[in-house]
């Protein structure tokens, strides 16, 4: 009985006070409605953002006394025990900047990732599919930052979430409600000596109700928490889909095992990127029209491989035509290859196969919530913003949000602030909003700039790209920004 009572208490303050409060509650409400189950932080959504938030809160001695809960619709035990054979990779991969990796390391999660499945890359080749203007992000001698030459780490999302779950299990202390859908979010009640009328109450399937001092929406682009808080998210759909696949390459890359290279080519339909995974494996992210995406998904493995090889080699005219063919892209590709000139060392090695069942697509959007906070509500990750994947920043933005929110909560706890109040959450918004907004804007403009197949923008953008490529310091500035190791400019 005592244990139950303790669980239901507000954990923000010391244990003895909690008990004192609990005794009071029992005295006053023993015959009335069920006592509210109060948590300091209720996080809705067990994706990378939500899990790293809880991990960071549990790992931090200042915030580890907070009573925290996780609500996730999926069965997390499956995620935790996720395992694939060494030569198979999931098609949903993300690039983690060194900054994100450092944060994950600080909260003790990095070591729980299967390191044999994490692939750092050190160089990038980005070029314009229309004009072939190119920027090579390789570290000139002497320009490499002291932290190392890693631009980012390629990693399967499941490896990250699985590692975070393992770390959370090690830390303990999180009330996990998995396989639980959020059915409704309401406000609490006002009682004689306790007024919870501004506290969110999360109703989950099975009838359980969780009252939150701070409700964190890590629940994705269609965030129910955001809807509850009445925060609008503005933006647009790109009318593009991201086609992903796990690819088998002819070799482990031009730079060998130790200098892996990421490639991205801007096509008028959207950028196509090939990112290195361990060994001969690479992961594909191809932003293209929904029609092209459904065609790509319908192709035989042979023709799909031909299309991917074509996407990095052939002219946009050839590519456009090959998207009108129902089949035989392989044959078309081998003919056009004879009449197309390129430097084979400047593009990814030839794709020789595609892992079965990994070709999939998802729609691309740009969304930015008007704010990330409300009274007793904070949004992180995709719930706050959805970005075009061309810069590989989506997951990193979410990690940046989490890092900032945890810092904000830590400050609030050490200064006696209510972690759910707008006053304490303000610094989270002011730290993240502008930075995210600038990044969203830049990526959005990049997408639009490179969507033009012809017109006055095409030579201008090539001039810009070539100019940046020629200017060493400017280029290394961009590289450090991309790696998240540069000076904070926003």
């Amino acid at each position, binding site marked *: 009985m005592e244990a139950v009572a303790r669980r239901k208490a507000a954990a*923000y303050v010391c244990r003895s006070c909690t008990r004192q409060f609990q005794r009071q509650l029992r005295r006053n409400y023993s015959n009335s409605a069920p006592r509210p189950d109060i948590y300091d932080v209720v996080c809705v959504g067990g994706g990378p953002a939500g899990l790293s938030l809880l991990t960071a809160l549990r790992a931090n001695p200042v915030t580890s006394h907070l009573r925290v809960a996780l609500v996730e619709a999926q069965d997390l035990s499956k995620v935790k025990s996720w395992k694939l054979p060494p030569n198979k990779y999931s098609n949903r991969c993300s690039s983690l900047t060194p900054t994100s990796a450092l944060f994950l390391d600080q909260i003790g999660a990095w070591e729980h990732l299967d390191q044999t499945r994490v692939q750092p890359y050190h160089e990038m080749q980005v070029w314009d599919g229309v004009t072939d203007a190119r920027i090579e992000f390789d570290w000139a001698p002497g320009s490499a930052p002291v932290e190392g030459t890693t631009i980012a780490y390629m990693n399967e999302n499941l490896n990250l979430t699985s590692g975070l779950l393992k770390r959370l299990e090690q830390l303990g202390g999180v009330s996990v409600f998995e396989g639980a859908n959020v059915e409704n979010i309401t406000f609490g009640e006002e009682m004689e000596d306790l007024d919870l009328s501004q506290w969110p109450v999360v109703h989950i399937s099975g009838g359980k109700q969780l009252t939150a001092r701070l409700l964190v929406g890590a629940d994705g682009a269609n965030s129910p928490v955001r809807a509850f808080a009445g925060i609008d998210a503005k933006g647009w759909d790109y009318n593009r889909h991201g086609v992903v696949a796990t690819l088998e390459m002819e070799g482990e890359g031009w730079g060998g095992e130790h200098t892996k290279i990421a490639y991205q080519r801007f096509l008028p339909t959207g950028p196509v990127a090939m990112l290195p995974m361990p060994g001969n494996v690479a992961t594909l992210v191809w932003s293209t029209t929904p029609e092209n995406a459904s065609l790509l998904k319908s192709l035989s493995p042979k023709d799909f491989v031909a299309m991917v090889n074509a996407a990095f080699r052939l002219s946009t005219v050839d590519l456009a035509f090959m998207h009108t063919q129902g089949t035989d892209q392989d044959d078309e590709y081998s003919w056009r290859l004879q009449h197309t000139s390129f430097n084979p060392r400047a593009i990814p090695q030839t794709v020789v196969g595609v892992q079965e069942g990994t070709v999939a697509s998802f729609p691309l959007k740009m969304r930015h919530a008007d704010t990330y906070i409300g009274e007793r509500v904070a949004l992180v990750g995709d719930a706050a913003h959805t970005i075009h994947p061309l810069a590989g920043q989506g997951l990193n933005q979410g990690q940046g949000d989490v890092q900032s929110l945890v810092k904000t909560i830590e400050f609030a706890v*050490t*200064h*006696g602030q209510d972690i759910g109040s707008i006053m304490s959450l303000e610094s989270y918004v002011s730290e993240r909003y502008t930075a995210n907004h600038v990044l969203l804007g830049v990526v959005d403009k990049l997408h639009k700039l490179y969507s033009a197949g012809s017109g006055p923008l095409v030579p201008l953008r090539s001039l810009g790209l070539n100019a940046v490529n020629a200017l060493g310091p400017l280029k290394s500035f961009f590289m450090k920004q991309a790696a998240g190791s540069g000076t904070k400019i926003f």
Partner: protein
Amino acid sequence: MLPSSPLRQLAPTMARRVRNPKTVARLASIPQYSAPVTTTSSPSATTQRWHSNHTSSPSGPSSSSSSSSSSSSVNPDEISHFNALAATWWDPHGSSRALHLMNPLRHDFIQNCRSSSPYSSFTVLTEDASDLLPPSSDAAHNTTHNTANVQKLRYLDIGCGGGIFAESAARLPTTSSVLAIDPSPGVLAIARSHAKKDPGLSPKLTYLSSTIESLPTLKPEAVTQKFDVVSCFEVIEHVDHPSLFLDHVAQFVKPGGWLVMSTIARTWTSWFTTNFMAEDVLGIVPKGTHDWHKYINEYELRGYFEETEEKRRFWGRPRAMGVVYVPGLGWKEVPGSEKVGNYFLGVQRLAGEDNA
């Protein structure tokens, strides 16, 4: 007690402004209000005015909010002014925003003061002990690190207002209890109703409608048990006789404990920023909040604690921290600015005897 205090000499010359009678009348409707008992022995005309203003109001004594006063250093006009502000006290974008933003710095300053001295008062609280250990003179000589893990502090917040500092102090894991007093029943009502919104506060936080002068009568154990931290933030500039006020406060500070204050220096800069700009031009602070003539300079306040040998034995060396409000960024510590505008001053009580 301290006849030669410069503050005392300063006090009678301070000008007082006449408040809008409407704000006084509005107080009558606040239900928590109750009339203080008029057993005054104070020579101050202002105290009498305070009484006369309120005896016409409907009264309903209640155990929790009644206050009795033998004398008061608090200006009744000030009380009515803050009563009128009560409604917006907790609005993060309201007139008290600057105070909300300053609050974390108060904790930083207290932390700063406490860690500056090897001596500390503290209260050891075992898991089930609901009663505080009796204060002993030995406690003052114990070093903090011996018992760091179980050290819990008792706070007294004088002039707590809507409870911005009191609530935050009560939330700290290192706090055992907070007694927050304020003579304005209106703001205390706001403070109480706001504290109700956080279930974690009620076990630790107690509000009492009281002046510092009437506190020993209302809560005798406050004098015997004393406090590890006695705070009076943005209070002294609203008090008619600051030195008398401080004389009263001294008895509540535990030996080894700290008296922490914040106020505004009386300079042209502070007049320009807090009166002219903040109140008249920008309106970020309600008009009539500050009376520039009541501002106390850092050297004046410091002087009170250092003026006699007796005082120097009783109090440690005062520590000051100047802060500047930067619009858009909030409060920032700026060394040296204590001479110019807002500043904190903290002083540790050394002697064990109250009649210093």
